[in-house]
């Protein structure tokens, strides 16, 4: 049709629904949100509807946080961590994000026939080390073994309870216009570390996962009397997904400054190479804290005294007059763009 007359407007038939679960349903983007919506509407719990990292429950005078998480990762061992450490940190961090002191964990293992006992031993030892570091005990568990080929070595599911020792309501609903947004350190390391190992991509500098328990910096803020409004650890979907969810749930506008968001050079380079945006890359040891403007400076200093959040920065604020429910980013060159959820996982570009 090089004669230029009447170009054919070509496009395929629409795919209107997903009859099967796709990997994108677990990618931390919009499809995953839709999947969670489906669970939430079936289970119909007010606590679930809060859309926080865990449930905050009142039993008599006691306030408990309760959460669960499942872990599947290949490879099982990667620079900066392994599936065992992840399984402990993930649940500890969900409890910490409820403003709770993590106390007890359960651990369930789905093991694939043929897994080496040595590998299992290393994973379990790593879990115990992470639990000790986070100051809690693994007190109950379960094991199942599946046929070879029906699992991926090890799947781990952990659940945890923690005690809430303060009266602050912590969650998206407590976010107020004017709040400062603090980020606990550089982003994108876990996702890029896994990708590098999984895909055999050798970068000049080895990227180590940021996988770490986050209870210490959170408890430090709370024990120092900072009126924390909201906490969220950054996992799948990265910083962008966490903030978009908070902005939507809170119905407020979050304004970020791109140049204030720390990204290590090796992560930045790897992302540029693959066409990925570090704002959407997974983390396992980072969180955002929303605190009143008046307490922002003190909160930041407190975070910076803890090793795991020594690189904390203020990255933005909640505005009163901005577009409600949106996160906007002032780019490095001074223009503004909207941060949105991705559909599923980011895919490396072609060229």
């Amino acid at each position, binding site marked *: *049709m*090089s*004669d*230029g*007359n009447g*170009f*054919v*407007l*070509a*496009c*395929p*038939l*629409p*795919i*209107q629904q997903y009859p*099967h*679960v*796709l*990997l*994108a349903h677990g990618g931390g983007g*919009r*499809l995953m949100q*839709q999947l969670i919506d489906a669970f939430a509407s079936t289970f119909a719990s007010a606590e679930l509807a809060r859309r926080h990292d865990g449930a905050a429950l009142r039993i008599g005078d006691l306030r408990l946080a309760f959460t669960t998480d499942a872990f599947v990762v290949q490879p099982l061992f990667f620079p900066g961590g392994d599936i065992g450490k992840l399984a402990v940190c993930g649940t500890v961090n969900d409890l910490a994000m409820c403003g709770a002191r993590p106390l007890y964990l359960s651990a369930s293992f789905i093991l694939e026939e043929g897994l080496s006992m040595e590998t299992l031993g290393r994973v379990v030892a790593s879990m115990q080390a992470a639990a000790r570091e986070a100051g809690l005990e693994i007190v109950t568990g379960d094991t199942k073994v599946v046929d070879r080929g029906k699992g991926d070595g090890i799947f781990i599911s952990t659940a945890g309870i923690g005690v809430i020792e303060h009266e602050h309501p912590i969650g998206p609903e407590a976010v107020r216009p004017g709040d400062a947004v603090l980020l606990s350190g550089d982003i994108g390391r876990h996702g890029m570390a896994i990708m590098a190992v999984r*895909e*055999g*991509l050798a970068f000049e500098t080895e990227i180590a996962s940021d996988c770490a328990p986050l209870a210490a910096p959170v408890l430090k803020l709370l024990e120092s009397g900072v009126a924390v409004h909201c906490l969220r650890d950054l996992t799948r979907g990265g910083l962008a997904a966490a903030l978009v969810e908070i902005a939507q749930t809170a119905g407020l506008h979050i304004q970020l400054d791109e140049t204030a968001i720390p990204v290590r*050079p090796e992560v*930045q*380079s790897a992302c*540029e190479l*693959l*066409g990925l945006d570090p704002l959407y890359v997974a983390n396992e040891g980072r969180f955002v804290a929303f605190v009143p403007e008046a307490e922002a400076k003190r909160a930041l200093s407190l975070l910076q005294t803890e090793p795991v959040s020594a690189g904390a920065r203020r990255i933005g604020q909640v505005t009163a007059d*901005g*577009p409600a429910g*949106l996160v*906007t980013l*002032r*780019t*490095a*060159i*001074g*223009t*503004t*763009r*909207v941060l*949105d959820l*991705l*559909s*599923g996982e*980011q*895919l*490396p*570009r*072609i*060229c």
Partner: protein
Amino acid sequence: MRFIDEYRDREAALRYARLIAKITTRPWTIMEVCGGQTHAIVRFGIDELLPPGVTLVHGPGCPVCVTPVELIDKAIAIASMPGVIFCSFGDMLRVPGTRGDLFSVKARGGDVRIVYSPLDAVQLAARNPDREVVFFAVGFETTAPANALAVLQAHQMGLKNFSMLVAHVLVPLAMEAILQSPNNRVQGFLAAGHVCTVMGYREYEPIAKKYRVPIVVTGFEPLDLLQGLYMCIRQLEEGRYEVENQYTRSVRRQGNEAAQQHIREVFEIVPRKWRGIGELPQSGLGLRAPYRAYDAERKFGVVAHTAEEASECIAGEVLQGAKKPTECPAFGTRCTPEHPLGAPMVSSEGACAAYYRYRRFTEKQVSTP
């Protein structure tokens, strides 16, 4: 950050914006050819920095977008065959064919894998001698050298179980098709820096001359794009129509001759259908006779058919810069990344996906300083 932050400097960007405003005396419409450039423009809001009369339209340089439905259907057919390991760049997996996409094939049990290099697929074939490994070779001149290398490597290793579904397209013919269209609005081009890194820019010189259109070979960072636009507008204002090179840190006039040699060794120029544009003569690459054994279409005997297309999608006009994604009635409503009507809504290099991700909200909602 070396070689990234330098090209994202706010002061330098504003300086270029002021320079552009200063030399612009009337409206101009400029097309950036490459989807990577489209994303950078929308992601960094480069167009916000331009004078109101300067319009950027987005070109066909998104490999995923222009791969015809028939080939995607063939890919799906091959990937669904037992014993096949189907390898593709990640971007391609979400593009809808007539029925479903490659991700759905994977969800139904097909062995579909994302690779980062065609050479990974060759290795996979060497490690799995009892399986057929097929690589989906999409892209422009940028990806052609590595794909050629993969065929040469498979040939050297004597691999009988490796093949390629070739969907390669070439940029210059598409630019000419756009310029020949009666609806053409494009007065100047930013040519794709990566394509020219491989091919050089000699082949653009006759186009600039024939159609009296300035072409500036341009990079992908905000400052590259602003400088490329400045150079292009300066030519337009001065009535010149030359090929200029903004991306000198990567592109030479003759390109990468070793890479071109590999392409010529393995591929020959063939007619190719472009999704949304139609068949263009001499606009694609196909395997040369000595390498036909690596042609997956032949090997698996997948039959060509005419695919039905959704009538509502205006991808064809978007890919030729005749319309902006937001001018499509289905944009953001019936067509989203979750339920794409057309490929430009899928790819990270597609214009519709870029607008959906960064521009879905009206400018009233987002105040720009």
